[in-house]
């Protein structure tokens, strides 16, 4: 396809979509009589209902169902392998096979380390630059990685982690190894040696998410009423005490939202692992392993079980989040 063909295709799609919307709006403006409200609501909700039912609800149910099957033996050469009921077999495999236990361990590292470190850095930075002279520029710098794709961020950090062997006049081209050599270390393959390589991958997501934490927390800090701070100061509360007894308790709801939002995002991120290691060298996580099993090694039942596991892991975090919000609203 040439560029102009693609653009024409896009314009046609937009025109078709505009026509559908026009029909809905025209229909809605012609609806009269007793059931008017109900009929307009139905018209406005039909496209969403179709999209969500066909594209979310059905596939999710289908995946849950599929997670109880595994590929059986082929009845003959060249014939597809039939799906065979295996009950909880796939789930059992996730929690017993050594490879997948490593995946679970890595996922645990990602989900525990990323939210706390990113939030801590974001909070620290928000406090440091609060009402400083260059606050706006300073915040933009930290926030900018949020706009970049995970793939782009991975390439950026690949260059930082670049390795050259320690021989003769060969110079390091990666920033981290250069600094490491300058303090007397020998060059390292940061992304190859487990389990530390996982933490070098996690650093990339922290780099991305700290800006999110900083933005939300900065807004929360600015909302702390002046008189509370003033009263504490008159009581002789120092900087550390101020942080512990005033700042953190006051912005607690925002902290909870930031931590849980980053934790959920972290669970689903597969791009960084996919781009830099492909899940090799013991760096895979559930989201990446799902992709490998489903589309790579053709173990669709196991892939489905991994996707469901992702789903199951997200739910308690969301429930906790909602409960905390309710509690803080009730206060």
């Amino acid at each position, binding site marked *: 396809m040439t560029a102009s063909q693609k653009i024409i295709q896009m314009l046609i799609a937009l025109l078709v979509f505009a026509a559908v919307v026009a029909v809905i709006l025209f229909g809605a403006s012609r609806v009269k009589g007793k059931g008017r409200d109900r009929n307009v609501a139905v018209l406005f909700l039909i496209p*969403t209902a179709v999209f969500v039912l066909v594209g979310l609800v059905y596939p*999710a149910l289908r995946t849950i169902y*599929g997670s109880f099957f595994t590929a059986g033996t082929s009845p003959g050469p060249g014939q597809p392998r039939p799906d065979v009921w295996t009950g909880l077999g796939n789930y059992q495999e996730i929690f017993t096979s050594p490879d997948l236990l490593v995946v679970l361990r890595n996922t645990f590292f990602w989900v525990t380390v990323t939210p706390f470190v990113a939030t801590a850095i974001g909070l620290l930075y928000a406090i440091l630059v609060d009402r400083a002279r260059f606050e706006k*520029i300073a915040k933009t710098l930290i926030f900018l990685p949020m*706009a970049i*794709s995970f793939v782009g961020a991975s390439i950026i950090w690949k260059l930082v982690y670049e390795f050259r062997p320690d021989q003769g006049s060969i110079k390091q081209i990666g920033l981290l190894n250069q600094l490491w050599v300058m303090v007397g270390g020998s060059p390292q393959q940061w992304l190859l040696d487990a389990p530390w390589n996982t933490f070098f991958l996690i650093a990339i997501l922290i780099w991305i998410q700290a800006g999110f934490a900083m933005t939300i927390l*900065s807004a929360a800090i600015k909302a702390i009423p002046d008189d509370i701070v003033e009263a504490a100061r008159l009581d002789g509360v120092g900087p550390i005490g101020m942080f512990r007894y005033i700042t953190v308790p006051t912005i607690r709801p925002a902290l909870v939202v930031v931590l849980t939002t980053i934790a959920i995002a972290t669970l689903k991120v597969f791009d960084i692992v996919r781009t830099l290691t492909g899940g090799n060298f013991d760096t895979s996580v559930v989201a990446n392993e799902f992709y490998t099993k489903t589309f790579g090694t053709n173990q669709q039942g196991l892939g489905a079980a991994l996707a469901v596991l992702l*789903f199951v892991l997200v739910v308690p975090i969301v429930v906790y989040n909602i409960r905390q919000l309710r509690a803080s609203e009730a206060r």
Partner: protein
Amino acid sequence: MTTSVAPVSNVDADEPPLKATDRAKRTLSRPGASLAALVIAVLWTLPTFGLAVTSIRPERAAKTTGWWTFFTDPQVTFENYQTIFGERTGNLGSFFINSFVITIPAVVIPLVLAALAAYAFAWIDFKGRSFLFVVIFALQIVPIQVTLLPLLKLYVQAGIAGSFATIWLAHSIFALPLAIFLLHNFMREIPRELIEAARMDGAGHVQILFRVLLPLLTPALAAFGIFQFLWVWNDLLVALTFSTGSNTNPLTVGIFNLQGTLGSSPHLLAAGAFVSIIVPIAVFLSLQRYFVRGLLAGGLKG
């Protein structure tokens, strides 16, 4: 300090004017705080800056010396960019077009559909409204991984596998729950009297939506539009699943593949990555105000 991008723009929408207590509010001594903040800022900027420098260095220099030697031995070339836009190595121009062709409908479609649905949930009384809204709210937590394979099979059955349409539809579907939730919240904040007054004047639902609500909702629509733009432009998972070749691959997939084939050519990889991040950065910097507002609304309510 030099940076790859040094914009002067707002992170915060509205800053309160400085008050007398401001100085008292500062929790840390200024020099120490400034130094710590500077260290973090440098740490956060340097990797991207290194990428930008690497992308304009000649192959030999980029492969044998670190980018920081650029300042003692400045050699500049634009050959890397020519190479990756060339048809043989990178073909990035084609991926660039694909990214736009994918992103524009994938932002417009969910935005319009969500506006209609959000209006129905916010301002039309009908039976089952609360229940349906809770369902939509709950669907936000479905990870897209759970839907990919069955959706792909549906596409194959429908005979549209491998087309742009699959990617437009997938992104629209995944965006709807959050979009409806956000727009609904914004719509509910509009005073009831405004809607009632329009009804008294004989306006129907379509007129109320277009004449009363939409003009007031521009910031909310912009906020979600930017969100969705960055999300789609930066997406790898959906594109990798549904796009089948260079005819539809967006930049993210292009760069992802380059990392496989050109992993040992940092100068080309850097140029490619820089091309892929420049559009979202430009969008983000020019519309930061809306983005932050959307983030605060979504982050604190969702």
